[in-house]
Each structure stands twice: as structure tokens, then as C-alpha cells.
């Protein structure tokens, strides 16, 4: 066949511009990579590369600033929502977001995230929930499930002595200052497509001045769950989703009109 295949092909998908050309430090199969990529895609689509300012947190997420080609500041563990508040209050026209994991948001940073939401800060928060403290080697997180074995719950999380997991999206739905609180997942193509729409909607919430937005993203952690990525996907579907149902927990009425 003499046809030059390259000339005849339509490009269906390529790496987003806003994603830096750097191999990531994430483990094979880690869906942080998917989350980073989706945020980059939305930044490209909304044309906000020059307006976006990310606030990096502490955890596996700490080097997100290497992977997104936008301005970034680095927060102390748990403090990203406070830092984002500082940035947004002096630069209200910028698109300011945090990117946090379980420990950062739901443990040490609980006060900062709750109050950013109650104040209705016009920022966006991406909360990557993978049920453990991955960067430090897989300790129990506030989001670890009952019975889940981690390095600090070696016999499985015992709710009697180690308490119950915290459902962040459900909690935040009760906060008046919160405008867009949803939980999505990153474990398969369908859920990833929906996650991307939620990420877009969250940024739209901010850009339209509608208040605090947060997207909780259920993610796999093959290394610390001790599984291959494919098995981790199954574990997420079978164990995490029943405990952390996907869905929209709070949606500002003005957002319902937006068609994506």
C-alpha cells in the first residue's frame, strides 16, 4: 500500500501540553499519574495555563509541581488549603488549586481543609484517596478501611482501638460554604472519563466565583496494597467503592446549567 499512514491518520489523543515531558516518580500503575494527566488536560482545554497556581502538599503528591507546567508553591503537610487561601486572597483572578492525599487532607490538615470550605474560599481541591500513607511506606490513614492491613495496623484496622474511616465528601456536603463536592474514581476508563468532567466542573466552579470545590478521587496504590495494578483495580471496585460511594454530594444550582 502506497498510502502514507501518518498523513491519513487523525490524532485521537496525545499527551497534554500542560503535562511536563518528565517521567514521573509514581509507582507503575499509580493513578496519581492519571489524576495529574487529567488536570493537565483540563488546564489545556480551559486555556488557563498562565492563570493557574498549584499548591503542592506532602505525600506522593509532593512532586506534582514537576509534572504540571504551571506556577506552583509547596505547602507544609496539611496546610495547602491555608496556603491556597493566602494565594487566592491576594490574587483573586488566578485559578488556585490544591492537590492532596489522605494524610495531608484528612489527618494533619483536617482543620485547614474544613475551614477553607466553611469560609467558602473560591479554591479547588483535588483529594486523592488511596486508603493509606503511601509515601512513608503504607501506614494506616484516616481513609483505611476496617480490617485493612497496613504497616501501622498489621492485624487489620481494628475499629475498637483505631477508629473508623472518615468519609470526607459526605462530611463536606454539610458545609454551607462548599459548592461542588463530588467523589469519583480513577480505576477504569469509564470512571476516569467521569473524573475528568468533575475536574472540569470544579475549575468552572472557581472560575465562575461560585465557592469552594473539591473532587475526591479514589485511587489505587499497588505498591502499598501489595498487589499488581490490575488486582488493585479489582480491590478498589470491590472494597473501596461500597464504603466510599461515587456520586455528587453537593452541587451548586448554577452548576447544573453547565453542559460538558
Amino acid at each position: 500500500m502506497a498510502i502514507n499512514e501518518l498523513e491519513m491518520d487523525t490524532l485521537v489523543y496525545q499527551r497534554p501540553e500542560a503535562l511536563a515531558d518528565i517521567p514521573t516518580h509514581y509507582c507503575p500503575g499509580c493513578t496519581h499519574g492519571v489524576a495529574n494527566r487529567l488536570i493537565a488536560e483540563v488546564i489545556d482545554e480551559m486555556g488557563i495555563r498562565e492563570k493557574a497556581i498549584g499548591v503542592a502538599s506532602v505525600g506522593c503528591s509532593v512532586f506534582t509541581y514537576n509534572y504540571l507546567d504551571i506556577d506552583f508553591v509547596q505547602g507544609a503537610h496539611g496546610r495547602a488549603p491555608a496556603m491556597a487561601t493566602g494565594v487566592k486572597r491576594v490574587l483573586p483572578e488566578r485559578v488556585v488549586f490544591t492537590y492532596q492525599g489522605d494524610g495531608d487532607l484528612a489527618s494533619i490538615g483536617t482543620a485547614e481543609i474544613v475551614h477553607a470550605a466553611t469560609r467558602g474560599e473560591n479554591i479547588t481541591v483535588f483529594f486523592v484517596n488511596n486508603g493509606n500513607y503511601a509515601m512513608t511506606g503504607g501506614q494506616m490513614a484516616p481513609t483505611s478501611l476496617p480490617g485493612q492491613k497496613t504497616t501501622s495496623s498489621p492485624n487489620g484496622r481494628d475499629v475498637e482501638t483505631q477508629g473508623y474511616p472518615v468519609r470526607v465528601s459526605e462530611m463536606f456536603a454539610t458545609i454551607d460554604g462548599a459548592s461542588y463536592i463530588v467523589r469519583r474514581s480513577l480505576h477504569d476508563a469509564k470512571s476516569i472519563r467521569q473524573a475528568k468532567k468533575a475536574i472540569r466542573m470544579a475549575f468552572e466552579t472557581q472560575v465562575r466565583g461560585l465557592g469552594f470545590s473539591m473532587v475526591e478521587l479514589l485511587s489505587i496504590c499497588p505498591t502499598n496494597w501489595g498487589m499488581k495494578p490490575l488486582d488493585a483495580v479489582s480491590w478498589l471496585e470491590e472494597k473501596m467503592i461500597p464504603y466510599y460511594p461515587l456520586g455528587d454530594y453537593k452541587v451548586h444550582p448554577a452548576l447544573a446549567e453547565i453542559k460538558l
Partner: protein
Amino acid sequence: MPLKGRIDVNEKYCKGCELCVSSCPQEVLALATDHINAKGYHPAVMVAEGCTGCGICSIVCPEAAITVFREKSGASRIPA
């Protein structure tokens, strides 16, 4: 005739996680058995015909390693 597509896997990024392999509805992907990349991973490669350019592999890929192409419709009918 089903659309034809093809993908390029950038071996610099691929970590051999196999999420694309299991997600491909046409089952045309597998991890290479005959080579590894600079980091020692077996990268994903196309091993069979049948790619439709659906892009599902690129959606699940955590490293954004996959570029997806689809033939423009009718292209395969243009004679040489």
C-alpha cells in the same frame, strides 16, 4: 468496515503496569517480551491487528505514554 487505528507507546514513560493491556477492548496490547526500556520495564506494545483507535488505553495510562491515531474514514478504501 470497522475503523482502523494505531497507537504509539513512548517507552521513556511506560512502566509496564498493564492497565492498558487489560483495558483494550480489542485485546491488541501486551507487554513486550523481547525488550525492556531504560528503567527495566517491559513496555506495552501492539501485538495484534484490530486497533480501532478508541483511545481507552490512553485514558487509563497513568504515564500519558500513549498517543492514539485513527484512520480518517474512507482512507483505507483509497486505492494505491
